[in-house]
C-alpha cells in the first residue's frame, strides 16, 4: 500500500482544498431529506390535511450520507487530477539532444531508459522542438557516436526503439565531442554507471545552456559477475557492484546445461562492500553440470557468467578390476581416475569386455601392458570407429612381454626412474604448454614433479599429420603425453602413472583439467588438428541483455595467445569462442574492474527514472463515483417506494453484498486447500497463471473437455484442478495444462524443482502459448529454468494423431501453430512426450462450448467443426497421456491402409 501511495501525485493539488468543505456538505446532506417526487395534481384541495399515520424519519440515513460524501470526495479527488507514477520529462527550450546510454550497464534499466527517452521525445514534439537522438555506444567497430541529424518525432521514436544495449563499454569521449558540437539542451538518459571519460562528458554538458541527467536509483544499478580464478570443487563467483547503499540480498543462480536451475543462493549485501563472493554448496553429482551463473532478476551480459564448455557429458570406462580397486584404494590407478572424472562423466569400471559392451566414448587403460589378442583386436576396432583410448604408463607396462600395439609411439621396454637411489637426476617439472598443443590453456602447476616415465622408442612430431604428437613435455624435452590418430579414433598416452606412484600429477588440479580436456576430443579426434594455433572462433555470443545468439559476420575471432587481454568490443562481444574441442567462455564481467555510480562522485543533479508508466486515475475515480451514483439512485428508488418497509431488508442486502465482495476478493484462501481426492480420481489440471481471466477460461475449457471425455470415452475425469507448482503435489495428474501468460511471474526455484520432478517422473505438460504460434518471449521467461529434452515438430504419424481420433491437425482457437513434442526415440517414457508445446489456445476453444444436461445426459452445444476438432485433440491428448504408445500398434492399421489406397 505504501508503494502505491508513494507513486501517487496530484497534478492539480489545489482542488484537494475543496475536501475541507466536506464537513459542510455533511451537515447540508444531513438535514436535507431525500427529494420527494413532484406530482402536479388538480385535486390538491381534496388532499389538504391528509397525512399518513406512520412517522417517517426526517433525516437522511447515515449510510446514504456516507455514500454521498464518498461520491463527493471521489469527484474532488478526480478534480485534483491524480496520476500514478507521474511522468518525468524535463522542460526544455530550443533544440534538444537526447543521449541514450546503451552500453553493457544500460541493459539492467533499459525499459526505464527507453520509457523516459520516449516521454522526452513526445514532450519535445509537443513543444515543436528540434530533436536529435544519439546512442552512446557504437554498434560496430570503427564507428564512433557522432552528432546525428535532427529527426522527426516518429523517426526519433523508431530510432529509439531500434536502439539496443550492447555488451561493451560506451564511447563517452566521442559523445563528449558530439555534445561540444551541439548547440542546445542536452538530456542524458544515463545508466548510472561511471565509465571511462565520464568527466569529459560532464565537462561538455556543463558548457551547454541546459542539461539534465537521468540515472537509475542506486539500488537499481547493474551488478556484474566475475571470476578471477576458477574454482576447484564448490562453485564460487564474485559479484561486483556499486558501493552505494543496497541492503537487499542479491540472488545468484547456478545453472546447468540448457539453463537448468541447479541452485540459488542469496548473498547478503547489508553492511558488506563489493566485491562479494557467492559460494555454492551443491552435491558433487551436480558439480560437473555447472555451466553458468546468473543474477536472478538482473538483465544484461554483466549479470551472467559462463564457464568454459567441456562438451557434453561423456561416458568413460576404466578397465580395472573393481575388487582390486577396493582393497588397494590409494595405490590403485583407477581410484584416482574415478575421483577425477566422476564429477564430469559417468564412469564405469570393469573388465575390458564389460567396458566394450557398454560402448563408452572414452576407455582408459591404466598401467595395462598385455591383453588377450582378441580383446586387443576388438579394442582396436573400437578405436578405429572413433573411440578415444587413454593409456597411462606404470610398472606393468615394463614387463618384457608387453605389447606395443595401441600406443601413439612404440615404447621403450624399461621405465625411466629419475628419483631412484641409483639416479642422480632430480624429479622433472613440466614444460609450459605451447599454443599448438591441444591441451593449451590448462593452468599448469609448477609444483608438479614427475619421477617416473616410460619413454617412447622414437621421437614424436615428425611433421606428418598422421604421426604421433607430443601434447605435453617435461622440462628435459621428453614427452609426458603423446597422442596419435588411428582411423576415426584417437590414442592418447600419458607416459607416467595415473596414481601418485611416479608423479605428483595425480594429486594436482592439472590432472583433472587434463582429463577433462582430453575427454573433449572423444568422438571428434579431428579437432586436435584444426586451427588450434591461431585463434578462437566465435560460437555463440551474447547480446546486450545476456542472451546467447549465433555470431554475426562482424564478430572476429580471439587470438589464443593474447586471449586474456581482450575486453568486449563490437569485434569481440562476450560469449563462447572455440578452437577445436576447446570452447572458451569470454565473459563481460572479467573486464569490469569495478562499478562506480556516477552519483557517488559528481555533484550532478540526477533525475530518477519513473518506475513505470504514468496512470491517470481520473477515469477510475469518476467510474467509482458514477457507480456510487447509480447505487444512490437505486437506493432512492427503493426508498421513495416504501421507506419504512425497505429499511431492514436493505441493511441485510448490504451485509450480504459485503460478505460476497469479501469472498470474491479473497479467492486464494478458498483455493489454497489441496484436494485430498486428487489421488483417488482422474483430474485434469492446469497451472494457475495468476490472471483470473485466463484461469477461468482454462478451467471452463478443461471442464468442457472433461465432459467430452465422459460422454465419449472410458476416461472419466472427476473434475478439474488448478495447481500451483510451488505448493501442490503434481504427481496425481496425468497431464497438466499450462497456459503461458505474460502476467504470470517467473516460477520460483521451488516450483521449477517441482515441475522438473513431475516431468522427470512421467508427467506430461501441455504448454500453450495461446498466441497462434509456438514462439513466445514469456515461454523463455517462464520455462527457462526447466530442463526440457529437445523437442521436434510433431511427425505426421505421431501417436497423438491417433490416440483416439484420427487427426490431421490440432486446432484450437488458432489452427496454424506447430505442435512440438519430445523426440520419441530419446525417451523411455512409453513414448509419451514430457512436454507438448503449441500455441493454438485449445482451452480457449474448448471453453467456447457449453455443456448442457438433459435427462441426466450431457450434450455439447455451440459446436463448429473447429470446435469439434479441438475437442478431439483434447480427447487424444488425454488418451495419449494415459495410454502412451498403446495406440501405435495395429488398431488403426486397416483403416490407415484403406485410406492410403484411396
Amino acid at each position, binding site marked *: 500500500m505504501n508503494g502505491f501511495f508513494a507513486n501517487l501525485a496530484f497534478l492539480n493539488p489545489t482542488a484537494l482544498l475543496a475536501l475541507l468543505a466536506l464537513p459542510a456538505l455533511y451537515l447540508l446532506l444531513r438535514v436535507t*431529506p*431525500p427529494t*420527494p*417526487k*413532484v*406530482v*402536479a*395534481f*388538480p*385535486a*390538491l*384541495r*381534496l*388532499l*389538504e390535511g*391528509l*397525512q*399518513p*399515520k*406512520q412517522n*417517517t424519519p426526517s433525516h437522511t440515513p447515515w449510510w446514504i450520507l456516507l455514500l454521498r460524501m464518498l461520491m463527493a470526495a471521489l469527484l474532488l479527488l478526480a478534480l485534483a487530477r491524480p496520476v500514478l507514477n507521474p511522468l518525468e520529462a524535463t522542460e526544455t527550450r530550443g533544440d534538444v539532444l537526447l543521449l541514450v546510454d546503451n552500453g553493457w550497464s544500460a541493459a539492467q534499466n533499459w525499459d526505464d531508459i527507453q520509457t523516459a527517452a520516449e516521454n522526452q521525445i513526445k514532450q519535445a514534439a509537443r513543444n515543436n522542438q528540434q530533436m536529435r537522438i544519439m546512442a552512446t555506444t557504437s554498434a560496430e567497430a570503427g564507428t564512433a557516436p557522432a552528432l546525428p541529424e535532427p529527426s522527426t518525432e516518429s523517426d526519433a521514436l523508431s530510432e529509439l526503439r531500434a536502439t539496443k544495449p550492447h555488451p561493451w563499454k560506451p564511447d563517452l569521449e566521442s559523445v563528449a565531442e558530439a555534445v561540444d558540437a551541439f548547440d542546445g539542451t542536452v538530456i542524458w538518459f544515463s545508466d548510472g554507471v561511471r565509465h571511462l571519460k565520464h568527466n569529459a562528458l560532464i565537462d561538455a554538458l556543463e558548457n551547454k545552456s541546459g542539461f539534465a541527467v537521468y540515472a537509475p536509483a542506486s539500488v537499481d544499478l547493474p551488478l556484474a559477475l566475475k571470476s578471477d580464478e576458477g574454482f576447484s570443487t564448490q562453485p564460487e563467483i564474485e559479484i561486483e557492484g556499486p558501493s552505494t547503499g543496497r541492503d537487499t540480498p542479491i540472488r545468484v543462480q547456478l545453472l546447468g546445461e540448457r539453463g537448468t536451475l541447479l541452485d540459488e543462493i542469496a548473498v547478503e549485501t547489508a553492511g558488506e562492500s563489493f566485491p562479494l563472493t557467492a559460494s555454492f554448496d551443491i552435491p558433487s553429482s551436480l558439480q560437473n553440470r555447472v555451466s553458468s551463473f546468473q543474477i536472478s532478476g538482473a538483465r544484461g551480459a554483466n549479470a551472467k557468467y559462463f564457464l568454459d564448455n567441456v562438451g557434453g557429458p561423456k561416458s568413460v570406462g576404466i578397465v580395472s578390476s573393481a575388487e582390486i580397486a577396493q582393497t588397494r584404494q590409494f595405490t590403485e590407478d583407477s581410484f584416482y581416475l574415478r575421483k577425477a572424472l566422476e564429477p564430469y562423466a559417468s564412469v564405469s569400471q570393469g573388465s575390458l569386455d564389460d567396458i566394450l559392451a557398454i560402448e563408452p566414448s572414452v576407455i582408459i587403460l591404466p598401467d595395462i601392458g598385455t591383453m588377450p589378442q582378441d580383446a586387443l583386436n576388438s579394442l582396436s576396432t573400437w578405436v578405429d570407429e572413433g573411440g578415444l583410448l587413454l593409456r597411462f604408463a606404470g610398472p606393468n607396462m615394463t614387463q618384457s612381454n608387453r605389447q606395443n600395439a595401441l600406443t601413439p609411439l612404440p615404447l621403450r621396454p624399461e621405465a625411466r626412474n629419475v628419483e631412484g637411489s641409483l639416479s642422480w637426476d632430480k624429479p622433472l617439472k613440466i614444460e609450459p604448454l605451447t599454443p599448438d598443443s591441444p591441451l593449451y590453456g590448462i593452468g599448469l602447476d609448477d609444483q608438479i614433479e614427475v619421477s617416473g616415465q616410460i619413454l617412447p622408442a622414437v621421437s614424436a612430431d615428425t611433421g606428418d599429420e598422421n604421426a604421433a604428437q607430443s601434447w605435453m613435455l617435461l622440462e628435459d624435452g621428453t614427452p609426458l603425453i603423446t597422442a596419435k590418430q588411428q582411423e576415426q579414433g584417437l590414442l592418447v598416452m600419458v607416459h607416467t602413472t595415473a596414481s601418485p606412484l611416479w608423479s605428483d600429477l595425480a594429486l594436482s588440479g592439472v590432472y583433472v583439467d587434463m582429463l577433462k580436456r582430453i575427454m573433449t576430443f572423444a568422438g571428434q579426434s579431428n579437432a586436435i588438428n584444426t586451427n588450434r594455433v591461431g585463434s578462437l572462433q566465435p560460437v555463440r555470443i551474447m547480446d546486450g541483455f545476456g542472451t546467447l545468439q549465433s555470431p554475426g559476420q562482424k564478430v572476429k575471432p580471439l587470438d589464443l595467445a593474447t586471449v586474456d587481454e581482450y575486453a568486449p568490443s563490437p569485434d569481440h562481444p562476450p560469449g563462447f569462442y572455440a578452437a577445436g574441442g576447446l570452447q572458451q567462455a569470454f565473459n563481460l564481467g572479467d573486464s569490469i574492474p569495478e562499478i562506480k555510480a556516477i552519483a557517488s562522485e559528481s555533484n550532478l543533479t540526477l533525475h530518477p527514472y519513473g518506475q513505470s508508466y504514468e496512470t491517470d486515475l481520473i477515469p477510475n475515480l469518476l467510474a467509482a463515483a458514477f457507480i456510487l451514483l447509480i447505487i444512490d439512485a437505486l437506493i432512492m428508488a427503493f*426508498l*421513495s*417506494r*416504501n*421507506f*419504512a418497509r425497505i429499511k431492514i431488508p436493505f441493511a441485510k442486502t448490504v451485509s450480504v453484498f459485503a460478505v460476497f465482495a469479501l469472498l470474491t476478493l479473497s479467492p486464494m484462501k478458498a483455493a489454497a486447500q489441496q484436494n485430498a481426492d486428487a489421488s483417488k480420481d482422474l483430474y485434469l489440471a492446469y497451472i494457475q497463471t495468476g490472471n483470473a481471466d485466463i484461469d477461468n477460461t482454462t478451467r471452463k475449457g478443461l471442464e468442457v473437455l472433461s465432459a467430452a471425455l465422459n460422454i465419449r470415452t472410458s476416461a472419466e475425469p472427476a473434475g478439474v484442478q488448478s495447481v500451483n507448482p510451488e505448493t501442490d503435489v503434481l504427481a496425481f495428474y496425468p497431464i497438466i495444462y499450462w497456459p503461458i501468460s505474460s502476467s504470470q511471474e517467473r516460477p520460483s526455484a521451488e516450483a521449477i524443482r517441482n515441475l522438473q520432478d513431475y516431468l522427470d517422473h512421467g508427467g506430461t505438460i501441455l504448454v500453450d502459448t495461446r498466441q497462434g504460434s509456438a514462439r513466445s518471449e514469456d515461454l523463455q521467461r517462464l520455462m527457462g529454468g526447466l530442463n526440457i529434452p529437445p523437442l521436434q515438430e510433431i511427425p505426421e504419424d505421431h501417436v497423438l494423431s491417433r490416440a483416439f481420433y484420427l487427426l490431421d491437425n490440432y486446432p484450437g482457437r488458432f489452427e496454424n501453430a506447430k505442435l512440438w513434442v519430445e523426440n520419441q526415440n530419446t525417451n523411455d517414457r512409453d513414448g509419451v512426450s514430457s512436454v507438448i508445446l503449441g500455441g493454438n489456445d485449445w482451452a480457449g476453444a474448448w471453453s467456447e462450448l457449453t455443456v448442457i444436461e438433459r435427462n441426466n445426459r450431457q450434450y455439447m452445444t455451440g459446436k463448429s467443426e473447429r470446435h469439434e476438432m479441438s475437442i478431439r485433440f483434447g480427447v487424444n491428448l488425454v488418451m495419449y497421456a494415459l495410454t502412451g504408445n498403446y495406440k501405435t500398434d495395429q488398431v488403426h492399421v486397416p483403416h490407415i491402409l484403406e485410406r492410403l489406397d484411396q
Partner: protein
Amino acid sequence: MPGFPNLRTEAERTASQIPDIKRLAVRTAYHILHGNNPQRRAGSGDAFWQFREYQPGDMPRDIDWRQSAKTDRVFIRQKEQHSAQTCLIWAKRNTDMRFQSEGSQYSKQDAAAVIGLTLALLHSRMGELVGFPATGRAGHSEKKLQEFEQTLMEAAPESMPSAFQMPKHAHFYAISDFLEPPAEIEAAFSGHGARTQNGAFIHVLDPAEIELPYEGRILFEDMYGQKSQLVSNAVDIRQDYAERIQAQIDTVRDLAMKWGWRYVLHRTDTPFEDTLKTLWLAEARI
C-alpha cells in the same frame, strides 16, 4: 393536442356510433323536449295557438274568416311561436383540465372537448341551435360548429361559467371535473337550474384523481405550481382520499338531481361512447 389529430374527426366518429333512427324515434316521441320545441306563445309556427281580435297592424291574411264569421268581431288566428330549441354546452377549460395521468388516454380537456362536440353534433343534427354560453349566438351552421369547436379547445381561466342568459328549457350541458367546493358549484349553476330542466352535469375525472395511484414520498402541487403539499407516503392516504373524492362526486350528483338534471361520470380511461350512450339513453327515458 396530442393523440388528437382532429378533434372533429374523433367527435364525428363518436357521434356515428349512436344509431340515428333510435335518436329520431326518441326525438319524435318526446318532441316537447327535443326537436320542434313549442314556445307556448304566439308565433310563426304551424300549430294553432289562440284566436285574438284583429288589431290594426295585423296582417289581413292572418284573419281567420271561419271564426270571424261566428261572431261580429274579426279574429285573427295566432299560431304558436316556433323556434328551434337551443343547446348550450359549457366545458371547463382551465389548466386543471390539462391533467393527464399515465393510465389515461386523454387529458380531461380532450375528453371534455370530444364529449362537448359530440353533443353539439347530435343536437345540431336535430336542428337545434348549438352554442357555447356567452359566446355570441347559437346556431347550427357548419360555421357555427367550427366556432364551437374552436371555443372548446381554447383555454379559459374560469372554473365556472360566467353569468349568461339561459333560454328557457334549453338543453344545457356542463362538462367539468367539478373539483371546486360544492358551494361554488351550486352558486354558479343554481340560477340555470331554475331556468331549465334539461340540464346535465358531465363529470370528467382522470383515473388518477379517483384512485390516487401514487406511492412513496410525493410533493403534490396544483396545476399552477402555486400550492403544494408534501405527503411522506402516498399509499397511506389513499383510503382517505378515496372517501373524499367519492363525497365530492356524490355532492355534485345530488346537485344535479336537485334541479332534475342528469349526471354522468366520465373517466378519461373509458371510451366516450359508453358515457354518451348512458347520457343519451338517460335522456330518452325521461
